[in-house]
């Protein structure tokens, strides 16, 4: 497959699984935006607006994580129930093209929700070029590792119901428990080191710089980027060697 054909396949999948279903049933969009907006609402109300900045940054991270969990459900359903993955395997489309297209299609669902958060980000006066670049970079990396994780897990499931078990656990472990929606200082000191096991802690740290919370020091930012990039590359590598494209 030439690069042009690969790009065409990715865009076709994004259209096929992203644009077409939304046009058929626009309510799909609410599903993706519901959880991040709920958290934004509760965190802001409970903190009397003090944690709004954190909630906006956390909401964006959660939106990208939800791409991974949605991807996990879709890929598992298409593989087990519709045998769509088998149709694609027996075609020129390679595994990474399939994942790329499907991950892009899930991103399409997130765009309206993301637009809400970007609007909040903009009206709070946090828009600067470095902040925008940080925001884009963090979201890209979170989207990438969430997609790689979602795809890898989905290829091991034998029934789509298994995703109903893993998706909440992933959300809990990567966006609810880690200091994504709140400052890490709110965690008891004894628990704080565990928060650094989650890549989203580093993503949130960087994001804080982009939402007017000061953000990490230069060295801290370098460490955050390195960990986030390393985690993403690690999961992409894991997906390339462990995801089941062809059954063993």
């Amino acid at each position: 497959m030439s690069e042009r054909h690969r790009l065409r396949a990715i865009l076709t999948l994004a259209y096929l699984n992203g644009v077409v279903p939304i046009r058929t049933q626009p309510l799909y969009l609410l599903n993706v935006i519901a959880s991040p907006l709920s958290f934004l609402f509760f965190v802001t109300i409970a903190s009397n607006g003090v944690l709004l900045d954190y909630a906006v940054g956390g909401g964006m991270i959660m939106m990208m994580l939800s791409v991974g969990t949605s991807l996990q459900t879709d890929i598992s359903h298409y593989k087990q129930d519709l045998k769509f993955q088998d149709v694609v395997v027996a075609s020129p489309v390679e595994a990474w093209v399939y994942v790329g297209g499907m991950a892009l299609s899930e991103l399409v669902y997130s765009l309206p929700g993301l637009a809400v958060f970007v609007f909040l980000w903009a009206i709070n006066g946090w828009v600067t070029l470095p902040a925008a670049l940080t925001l884009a970079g963090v979201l890209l990396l979170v989207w990438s590792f969430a997609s790689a994780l979602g795809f890898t897990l989905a290829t091991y499931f034998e029934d789509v119901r298994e995703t109903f078990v893993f998706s909440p656990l992933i959300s809990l472990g990567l966006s609810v428990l880690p200091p994504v929606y709140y400052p890490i200082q709110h965690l008891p000191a004894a628990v704080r080191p565990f928060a650094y096991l989650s890549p989203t802690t580093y993503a949130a740290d960087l994001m804080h710089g982009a939402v007017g919370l000061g953000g990490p020091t230069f060295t801290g930012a370098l460490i955050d980027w390195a960990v986030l990039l390393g985690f993403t590359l690690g999961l992409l590598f894991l997906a390339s060697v462990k995801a089941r494209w062809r059954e063993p």
Partner: protein
Amino acid sequence: MTSAIVAQGLSKVYPRGGVTALSGVDLEIPAGDVFGLIGRNGAGKTTFVRVAATQLMPSAGHLSVLGHDVAQAADRIRPRIAAVPQESRPLYFLTVDQLVYLYLRLRGHERSDARERTDRVLAELDLTSIAHRLVSRLSGGMRRRAMVAMVLASDAEVLFLDEPTTGLDPIARREVWAAIRRARRERRTVLLTTHYLDEAEALSSRVALLDGGRVRLEGTPAELRQRVRLPYRVTVEGVLTRGELEPYGEVSEVNGAHLVFAREREARELAMAALGRGARVAMGPVSLEDIFLQVVGRRLDDESPVEEPA
């Protein structure tokens, strides 16, 4: 005769559960023709198709498609094949037209080519009138036809159709048959698995009978008839008892009539004798169903458990 698919000592043991699905399968499938794989549920048909379509790794032996080994060079095979897996269903939010068109775009077809191929295949399979209907609102048979249309529209040289007509009504089956015949006219290779032996006989130049993960018989339907011990069937209704029929061949009872498998001479003698006694008689060469019964020892639709591995 060039071969599109060649299996040598092919075996497949599923890692989970250790079930042996294929055991030392040797098979040569000629290029540019329709080849039928027949067998009961669990005989190994789908496993063979999935290994050949590069969806499943073999455990031992070799299988090559268009000259490339499935284990070593799947990437060279995949652009030249297309598959409709068993029990596959189209994405429910697509229309029939979108299903075919987007599949072709996914495979790399240019927009105008994909459009032209889509319109042509929908017309040929009599799907034009429902082209813009959501597949979720179609009957199971219609969805199946849409899936078949999808792969037939592609430029794949080898098509894997795993029970493509299961669940279709007789008219829809005939339309899919016509499409498969078109693929044969275009000199494409079609590997067809089916439960319907009339379908295998009507469409396939050659058939292989799989049972317990092994090829029990392979050849043209005419060759298979020559290879069975008792190549004629005589159906006798009334008058004659089982004991009177047994000297002529193997006797079984089907729907109240006696079915006798016999050699040609004995079949003729029996037919004459039965007619002389006023019985209703029908005689002819054995069907694929009869061959299956003789070789495997049970009917194709007999789902009772067997000791052999599934």
